[in-house]
Structure formats: structure tokens, C-alpha cells
């Protein structure tokens, strides 16, 4: 995909973000941070591919137990991003439930 198309999407998404987030009330700012943080765990998509692809077959690459450096870096990224995604959505849910309940 060409760079200008990516850049267009990037800029438009920032505008969408600004429009929505300015409407979030201050009382929900903490869940907003933890929830948006879980969304930034989307890096997990790149991490999965890096972990699972055997790109080194037939090439002169350093491997550990059959895994290349790309796989190992990807694995660490999967761990980090999964903590972010699972922990982020769960803790946000926990907080929002407290805001929902009324007397």
C-alpha cells in the first residue's frame, strides 16, 4: 500500500479521535486511558505474524530451538501486547461497572 494512502488514513483517524475524545466526560478519563491503552495493544497483530512466520528456512540464520530472532522478538511482543489487551479491557470493565451501578 502506498505511503500517501497510509498517511491519509492516519490523519483522518486522528481527526476522528479528536472529535470523539473531546466528548468524553472528565469523570471517565481514567477508564478512557486504560481502555484506549488496551486498543493500542493492536500491535498484537504484528507480533503474531512475526512470531509465527518461519522466514529463516533455508537461510543462514541464527536460531534458538528452531526459532529465529524474528520469532523470539515477536514472542516477547505477543506477551507484552497480550498483557496490554487482556489487562486493559478487563480493568476498564471493572472500573466502568462501578460507574454504572446506582443506588
Amino acid at each position, binding site marked *: 500500500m502506498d505511503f500517501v494512502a497510509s498517511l491519509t488514513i492516519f490523519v483522518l483517524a486522528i481527526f476522528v479521535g479528536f472529535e470523539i475524545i473531546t466528548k468524553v466526560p472528565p469523570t471517565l478519563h481514567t477508564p478512557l486511558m486504560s481502555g484506549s491503552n488496551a486498543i493500542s495493544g493492536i500491535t498484537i497483530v504484528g507480533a503474531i505474524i512475526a512470531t509465527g512466520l518461519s522466514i529463516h528456512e533455508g537461510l543462514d540464520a541464527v536460531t534458538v530451538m528452531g526459532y529465529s530472532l524474528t520469532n523470539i522478538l515477536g514472542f516477547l511482543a505477543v506477551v507484552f501486547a497480550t498483557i496490554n489487551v487482556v489487562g486493559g479491557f*478487563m480493568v476498564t470493565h471493572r472500573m466502568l461497572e462501578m460507574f454504572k451501578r446506582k443506588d
Partner: protein
Amino acid sequence: MPENITNIAYLIAAVLFIYGLIGLTHPRTAVRGNLLGGMGMLIAVVVTLLRSGLDYELIIAGFVIGGLIGAVLAIKIEMTAMPQLVAVFNGFGGGASVLVAGAELYKEGLTGGDPGLQALIAIALSGIIGAITFWGSLVAYAKLQGVVVPDQPVRYPGEQVVKVLLLLASIVCAVMVVQDPGAMNMYWYLVIIGSVLGVLLVVAIGGADMPVVIALLNSYSGLAAAATGFVLSNNVLIIAGSLVGASGLILTNIMCKAMNRSLANVLFGGFGAIQETASADDVYGGKVKSTSPEELAMLMETASRVVVVPGYGMAVAQAQHAVRELYNLLEARGINVEFAIHPVAGRMPGHMNVLLAEADIPYDKLIEMDDINPTMQQVDIAIVLGANDVVNPIARTDNSPISGMPIIDVDKAKTVIVVKRSLSPGFAGIPNPLFAADNALMLFGDGKKVMQETVNAIKEA
């Protein structure tokens, strides 16, 4: 799975993220919004796993380890420690970007592929932003948790020069990564310099400025994800990353405005530009009156409107549940009780709201500063609980370190009760004339204990 279908699934995920954030614009729809966001993430992960040629063993191991750690953190964390947790999560997001960009660079080097200029610049950006986010967040965590690094700003001569030199060095490394993608070492040098920069940036910032720092790191974690999206030419990463980046920037801006300081001032300046303020003795000398929980209970008997102004001290004392008891008791007697929330009260945006929500205070009782200030004259009793700088009337004068900072006008209430351990200054390091005001009474002691004693005194009366 055909690439078109994968990309359409990614588009659906991106739309769900946007719907999820829209849900967060109201407490009633927020739970559903968060679930929609989670569903978007699930779709993105599943279609990625369905790509052909993936070896699942290591991926599943990563899911299990990360999932367990994330779930335990999310379930076990105390609400008072939420700023620390968000700091750590920001850091992990940045760390993941560093690793994915590194993995991609290594892959291209190995297979002799040419990633192209766009991807290489994006790899360098992912590395540097991700490293700053990861280490900056860990230092923010340590400051909030009170381990290893002091809460106070760590400052030294020439610190700005050091940071500028590091920034220049990182740019040199970035250029070298772009010119010779095969030299993997250069990428790691870039990451190391970014790491040092992240540590130095955040150690220089004091505890009470953490709301700004956490919001900024939140933004960085999003921008790092967006940069990784440019590396992989993946739209869902670009969209999700830029949404988070925008969100963090807005929060950063709100926090800076609430302190009447620029972002540059928070990051590089700090308080203390104007040191010549009145000494504590001049301000307080013989004018401070103190009171007791019993006296406060008596005052409550004739009150019809009470406003509580919480600050970080409430979180430290874990006083939110005791406050809830007081709230129940007063509301049962027909007294209107509200909570006035300053945007930078606590250690992260919305920190006080979460603590009070945990204690079952309905969210419509949490009033924003701008909404409550015009009605402050009609308040019978304002209780300042562990807040200091955000109620300091000296902010209305010139020549003080906090001049121009918007404050909650508690001094306009008929009676002000300040619950505090001592007359020690807040983060800005200046005395608070409110404590010596004619209508102010100091109630010295631990926030939780004082609240409980007041509740008991009201019950006995």
C-alpha cells in the same frame, strides 16, 4: 484466507474501536463501548491467526503468559493504585512496538528484502517512541509506587543539554538504520538511546505532575502503534494507534490547562521560577484556627449544602469509603452533598472519580470545577480532603508559582474545613493563605480517621 477478507475484517475491527470510544462518552453506555472495543480486538486477532503459514506454538505460549499476567493485574489491582497500572500498560504497549519493528527489520535483513524508505523511517520511529514510552512508563510507575526513584523531580546542571545530545544521537542512529537496514546493531543502539531518554525525561518530573506524564505516555503508546502500522502497511494498526494518540494528546492538553502551564514547562521547567513568596510564618502566624470532628458534626446540623473537595491525600489515606459513610448519613438527613473535582486532583486524569465510584458515590454527584465554582457562595460547608494547591487562592494573584492556575473556589463557601495532617505545603511548595482565612478551620489528622470520627460524632449527636 484471502487478503481482501482479512483487510475487511481489520476494517470492521477499526470501526468497532471507534464505536467503543463513542460508548465511553457516557457512563451508561461505557461498559458496552468497552466490550465493543474488546470484540474488535478479538476479530483482529482471529483473522490474523487464520493467515496461512503460521506456526502456532510460540504464539499460544505468548497468549497464555501475557493473558495470565494481564488478568491477574486487572483483577488484583487496588483502585488507589490505578495510575501505576495504567503507567505499566502504557509501557508494555510501547515495548511491543519496539519488538515488532525490530523483528520486521531483522526479517527484511535476513531475507534480503527491501522494506522501502517509508517502512524504514517508521521502524526507526517505532523504536525510539516505543523505547521512550517503555522506560518512561516504568519510571512513572516507580515514582507512583514509591520504589527506586524519588517522587521529587531529579534535577542536575546541564540536564537539558544532555537530553538534546541524546536526541541528536538518536536522530543519527535513525538515519543510519534507514541507510543500511542490514546493520541490526544500529537499531538496538537507537533503542538504547531512546530508553535512556525515556528515563531522563520522567525522573525530572515530580509526583504531582504525573497526570500530564501519564496522559502523554498514553499518547506515545498510541503513536508507537501507529508507527508500527506504517512499518507493516497495516491500516488497523494505523487507525487504532492514531485514535489512542489523539486521546492521549487531548488529555495531556486538558491537564496542562488545568495547571495553567505549557507542556514544555511541565516536561523541562518545573515549579520554582519565582521563589520569592511569603514565608509560611507570615501567612499562618497566629491566624490558623483548628477544629475537631465533634465541632464539625455540630456545624453539619445546620448545613443544607456540603461540598467535598478531594485530592491525592484522600487516595493516600484510603479515605473514600469513610467519605461514603459521611455522604450516606448527611444525604439521609436531607443535606445535599456534592463532590467538586479539580482536573489535576490525584495522580492521573479522572483518578478521584474512579475512587469515589468505587465507594459507590453516584457519578452525578461528582461535579466539575467550572460547574461548581459559580455556586460556591451558596455552599454552607466545604470540606477539603487531602487537596492543597488546587484550592490555593494565591493562584488568583500574580507572581506566585501557580499564578493563573484555575482553582476550586472553596474560600467563597460560608465555612471551609481543611482536613490535613499538618500545615505542610503541597507540591508547588508554597503556603496556602486559605488555611489562615477567617472562614477556614483546620481539622488536623489522617483523612480516613477524621472522616470516621465525624461520622461517629454525627450519629451520637
